[in-house]
């Protein structure tokens, strides 16, 4: 079903972090950007669709105005809004937002770090754009920061802080079907597997809470009103977002899941875990009849590698890319 294509070499290896690969397709320029985090550096590669041109850029997590300070990055993700695309980088010290090519930093938000080290780590993790003008980023305290992003310029402001989670945020996702018919358009997940379902707006509205079973939810997606969640136990669960009804449960992987992705036009689902496997599934969701089906399509095994990132490169799921801990390449697969 899929075959391996030529890998993209990285300047350094990928770190073991959840959702450690982000992809942005820029159709007008026939380019695709990839970002992979290595410790305190974001590796960016820009590839032309004809496969002939590659260019690399590295962004280091540094607070502005502090000469030597660096901090470990937890996640780097592209946020595609109708008016603009931004690259958001979340670290131990705060949140940085760049123009999508990484050329200019347009915004910096510092996390409240206590004077003396506390018993709990402080960091930002979990990044998603939602509706027309918001970017949400999670924090280790369980808070979700909502930033209001104007259509251009650097006048980004912190609009709201959502405080429903008690454990560190792991991942955040927005409704990606493209349809406006779904009430819920945001889901946030935490270390305990608890999930909150929201409706965005000037004031975000909490629609539902789906309790976790003390199993970390490391990666989450929202498609056609259905929450797709990947867990540390290797399970994938499908929930109806607004009601919390469990539609399906898959014993998908033998180890901790690190990444889930959806191709919204075709309903293909990608799951990747520490067990070296990437799996492709097909989802059929008919909201009218409340029917949800998931079928397994394909496996890829990346030998001797704990996978930390897997993303489709396009909305149909024609191609996908994979990163692994200690691996200095982005492995690509294309439909046969």
């Amino acid at each position: 079903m899929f075959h391996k294509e030529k890998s993209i070499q990285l300047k350094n290896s990928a770190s073991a972090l959840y959702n450690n690969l982000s992809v942005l397709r820029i159709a007008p320029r026939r380019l695709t950007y990839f970002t992979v985090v290595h410790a305190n550096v974001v590796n960016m590669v820009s590839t032309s669709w004809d496969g002939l041109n590659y260019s690399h850029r590295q962004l280091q997590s540094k607070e502005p105005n502090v000469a030597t300070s660096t901090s470990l990055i937890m996640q780097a993700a592209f946020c595609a809004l109708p008016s603009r695309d931004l690259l958001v980088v979340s670290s131990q010290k705060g949140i940085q937002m760049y123009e999508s090519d990484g050329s200019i930093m347009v915004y910096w938000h510092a996390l409240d770090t206590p004077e003396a080290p506390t018993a709990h780590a402080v960091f930002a993790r979990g990044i998603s754009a939602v509706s027309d003008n918001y970017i949400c980023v999670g924090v280790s305290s369980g808070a979700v920061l909502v930033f209001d992003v104007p259509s251009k310029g650097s006048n980004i402001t912190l609009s709201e802080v959502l405080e429903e989670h008690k454990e560190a945020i792991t991942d955040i996702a927005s409704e990606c079907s493209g349809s406006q018919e779904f009430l819920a358009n945001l889901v946030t997940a935490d270390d305990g597997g608890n999930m909150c379902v929201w409706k965005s707006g000037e004031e975000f509205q909490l629609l539902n809470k789906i309790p976790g079973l003390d199993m970390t939810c490391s990666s989450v997606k929202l498609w056609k009103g259905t929450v797709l969640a990947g867990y540390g136990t290797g399970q994938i669960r499908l929930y109806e977002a607004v009601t919390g009804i469990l539609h399906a449960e898959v014993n998908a992987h033998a180890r901790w899941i690190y990444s889930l992705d959806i191709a919204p036009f075709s309903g293909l689902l990608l799951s990747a875990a520490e067990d070296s496997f990437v799996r492709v599934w097909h989802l059929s969701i008919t909201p009218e009849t409340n029917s949800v089906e998931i079928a397994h399509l394909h496996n890829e095994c990346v030998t001797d590698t704990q996978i930390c990132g897997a993303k489709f490169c396009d909305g149909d799921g024609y191609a996908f890319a994979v990163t692994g801990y200690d691996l200095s390449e982005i492995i690509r697969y294309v439909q046969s």
Partner: protein
Amino acid sequence: MSVRTLPLVFINLGGEMLYILDQRLRALNTSEDQSETGVWSERDRKRVLNDVVGTMFSKSFMDELLKPQQLYSHRTMKTVLTRLAHSSIMRLNPASMDRLYELMIMAFKYQVLLSPRPRDLLLISYNHLDAARAFVRDTPAVLNQVDETHRKIIEVYSRLSDGEFQLLRQTLLTFLQDVHTRVSVFLKNQIQNPSGRFVLMTSGPVPAGVDVPGLIRTFDPRGREVGRSEFPPGGTYSGSVGEGSFELSGDRVLRLGQNLYQAETNPLAKEELNLLARLMGCMKAGSVPAADEEAASALARIAGQFTDEEAELENPSGSKGDDLLAMMDDL
């Protein structure tokens, strides 16, 4: 990232150090006559192990490590571990310490990477603690220190959630990233490839609490199962073999963290450790000239500088590692 890594790092790296030192000192034991300089007797070996374990598990050292803090750099880690080794009558020159550090790091990387669940890092640490106990079972005072440390570890870490353990593991993996030193005993046992990367099996028992992959279940709105199907998982998995004991004693079930160097008969591995032994063999305190005392204090000064630089870089207000090193001086 995680502020709880240091105690586990030292227990595991220190534990690996004990295995390697024990193995090499046994090999060096060619004479019963303890008066012959440069030869290591059974009594010397036990003394070295008791001294190292005693320092590693001293209350002040452990209390310092247990404070929430960021992980040290490799440079600081190596310095502190060198001081640990030198708390005994043994002396290691930089070349032998470098090699010892590489072996320790690769063993630890293997254990962290292959840990079935993040929480199993504790079982790996407990395997090291069990071994340390065995080394000092004839010295009640030191044995007591190990037990005390074990109790504190249980107290601190049993509160962490699985998600926090994974963060801890991810922090360790970042620290251990890009190190691919080839180790003979790993190559021989086929747990490491010639490329330096570790072998990850896609077969065997799944971790405790994980189901064997291959099942899809669907439910109706009332939660009743309405469909079941299977898919090929690609690997050959079997059910979990159960969870090891997280108590002070008991069957840990997991073998990661146990001594890999015991009964080492492979010539290649022996040669590698022989080199280390030759370097170590000529360095026994007492048979070493006074110039080395100067070298030791120079080391202390330099180590202090490392941690100062580090403190400026990472923590303007702190003296991370300084207190630790100073305390080791007092031991």
